[in-house]
């Protein structure tokens, strides 16, 4: 069973993404949670796979559904766009109640939101896959990881793969600096 703390972490991430002007659709949340789960040194229990648009967790998708059911998040619809997530008043209450502001993971949540909020979904797909490739073999040189990225996602061009790999290397220290050991 998912704990109230896990609910609150997702809510805090959603809130921070919105504060940093992310569209905050499901892709934005999925990729951000993948970064948080992978680099936060605090397993949140979501199983990510390499799916159509990069790393994706069906568990996390269900978790978002659950948060909506419980009234902690809501979906906004602005045609012709797909839905975007926002934290409700009840959700804000849970973030406070669970004291996420003083949680060791909070800096990591902020770093994730700051780095990823401005990204479009295609950039997030590429960055997320770059992280997944890095996790496979952290010692591999950039060129080899970019090549691996195009093998996993053939529709990503070699130029975009190289760009995504380099950008990942640029933002990685920011995550590592805030990485906690909760």
């Amino acid at each position: 069973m998912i704990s109230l703390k896990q609910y609150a972490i997702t809510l805090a991430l959603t809130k921070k993404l919105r504060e940093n002007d992310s569209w905050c659709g499901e892709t934005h949340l999925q990729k951000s949670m993948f970064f948080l789960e992978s680099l936060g040194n605090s397993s949140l229990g979501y199983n990510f796979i390499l799916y159509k648009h990069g790393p994706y967790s069906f568990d996390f998708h269900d978790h978002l559904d659950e948060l909506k059911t419980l009234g902690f998040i809501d979906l906004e619809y602005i045609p012709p766009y797909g839905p975007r997530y926002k934290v409700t008043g009840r959700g804000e209450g849970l973030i406070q109640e669970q004291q996420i502001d003083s949680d060791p993971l909070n800096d990591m949540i902020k770093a994730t939101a700051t780095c990823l909020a401005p990204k479009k979904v295609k950039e997030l797909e590429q960055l997320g896959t770059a992280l997944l490739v890095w996790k496979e073999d952290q010692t591999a040189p950039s060129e080899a990881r970019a090549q691996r990225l195009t093998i996993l996602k053939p529709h990503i061009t070699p130029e975009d793969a190289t760009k995504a790999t380099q950008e990942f290397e640029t933002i990685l220290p920011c995550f590592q600096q805030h990485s906690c050991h909760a």
Partner: protein
Amino acid sequence: MAKTTHEFRDAIHSFITCSTDERKVINSRPMQRLRHIHHLAMTYLLYPGATHRRFEHSLGVMHLATRMFDTLTDPENLRHLDSNVRSLIDEHIGSDRQKNHWKTVVRMGALCHDVGHLPFSHGAEELLPEGISHETLTWKIITGPHMAELWRSLSISEPEEIAKVAVGAKEASRMNPPKILSPWEDLMAEIVVGNAFGADRMDYLLRDSLHTGVAYGKFDVDRLIKTLRFLPQPPEGEGGESDNPVIGVELGGLHAAESMLWARYFMFSQVYFHPVRKIYDLHLQEFMKAEFSRGIPLDDGLEQFLKLTDNEVLASLRKAAYDPLSPGHDPARRIEKREHFKKFFELTFSERQSNPLALQEVAEAARTKWGKENIRVFDKDKSAGTVQFPVRRDDGKSIPAQAQSPAIKNLPVVTTGYIFINPQSHMEARKWIAENRGSLVKDLNQGEAS
């Protein structure tokens, strides 16, 4: 001359047809086994007509999936698509040979999507080892030796294509190792087991509605299927376009889609989450745990598993009900003599929202008071309100259904939590809840619910 097309009469769809080679699949051992597995487990103890089996449901899913495939891939219905969204479709069904191949894959995936079910369907699933589900078994059966020759007769060289369409992306990703569907396979699986318009869902709503006598499960399936379309996914913000099509609906079919989603809500409320049905499921699980104390047999290439149906379990259950020395005697007796535990607490939606852990907290207090052997808990929420699909408006734009339809945006959530007690203590427990509900169900924000 021998017939090449064969027909089944069906209570929902009138006639369901198949080819001679497809009939061999229907006649196979894994498929025929489904004649002996109730679609709604022991719901017939509550709704006496609900004795239908997974076999006829599987035929129905094949029939509806075929109709959906034909509508979705009709060239007339693809003309509106931009070339980038259409490229995936052209790449896979550009020729008649390709189209026939995928139609067969969809039909067979639909037909076989339930072959891995245990006796009494979902009721016994908890007995499976960690990481194994009925979808895992479905995958193993479809890709295993029992069906290999049948696929060859149908010119299908990769049975995994059928398995992927039968279980869908989510369950395939939970296999060990994970199986990942390509965007096209994902689209085909949506036809069969999709969350919004899967043929599985359409058939079970209509069929369960008919057999339970709960009329709320009906909807205009003909109109809905006629108006289904491959549509671009609404973009996730500026620059958030995706080239992968999804299954959506023309504006003219929106009311049919609405009625299906409401039908689902009603069926969950009235049938699937009915407290008496749930307590029979729980007693059945207890019996099966005792009966299969060494686990469900899954070795030996699923030979033992394929021999196991509701019939064998029912025979054991009736015997155990009258044999006090049998390890499964108590739950068997409760089912056979209708002496099931009784509901004394039902969590309201607002209570769950106020405190997601409320049900477990009340259950713990009840266990402390009456002993855990006298308490049973069913806890489930189903967010029927979050089904996402696009609607194609008359101006050609695709927008999220929720943006077009208040009936879908405001679809209530089916959420249920029950606590049951040994019938001997039922009245006492009801009084306890009535007197203590306010202090037992604590509001996270205010300490106690009002």
